[in-house]
């Protein structure tokens, strides 16, 4: 069965520090991969997506993610976090050829230490 694992439930980093959020997936073939952010009172917003091609993808708000097929991972990174980055982050997958039925991980809550 397809699944997405985000092993870190909650992460706290200092403002200005680098960030890496982990994501592993289980899928029959290479899926489409996504990262979403959900801030309190706001809807889910797409940060970035990987469909094919270059395995390092750039997103909005200075985020990037790297697809590693051998590790079935799609980790999210940011070189320097800002207090406004505090939010819930979700990794997600969808079958190749169709981004309609998205399967989400359980999320990682990011807190920022002043």
């Amino acid at each position, binding site marked *: 069965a397809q699944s997405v694992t985000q092993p870190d439930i909650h992460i706290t980093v200092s403002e200005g520090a680098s960030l890496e959020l982990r994501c592993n997936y289980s899928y029959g073939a290479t899926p489409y991969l996504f990262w979403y952010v959900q801030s309190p009172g706001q809807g*889910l917003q797409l940060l970035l997506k990987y469909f094919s091609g270059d395995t390092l993808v750039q997103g909005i708000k200075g985020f990037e993610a790297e697809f590693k097929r051998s590790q079935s991972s799609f980790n999210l990174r940011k070189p320097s976090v800002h207090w406004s980055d505090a939010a819930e982050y979700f990794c*997600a997958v969808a079958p190749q050829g*169709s*981004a*309609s*039925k998205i399967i*989400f991980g359980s999320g990682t809550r990011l807190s920022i230490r002043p």
Partner: protein
Amino acid sequence: GAGVSQTPSNKVTEKGKYVELRCDPISGHTALYWYRQSLGQGPEFLIYFQGTGAADDSGLPNDRFFAVRPEGSVSTLKIQRTERGDSAVYLCASSTGLVNNEQFFGPGTRLTVL
């Protein structure tokens, strides 16, 4: 322009009652999606419409859940004989319907079943 809107923002009901949740997609978007997000979890796919028809309803948990989109725009998610386990945030998203296009999410309806 206006994003995806959902009404009501909060709904409290009693076990056994019937509820309707409404979603207004972004104007011109032909695809519409419903997800359910339980506390501490990622969104879970329920159903996807392309135009007026349900293209994939494999995520509906049982026959108490039903969704319609009669004119290909507004959609209503209907839950009969609500149970306490139905308590969650119900999210709606829309997209242009083109293959692999981004889903834009609404703020959700928080349903509480007492």
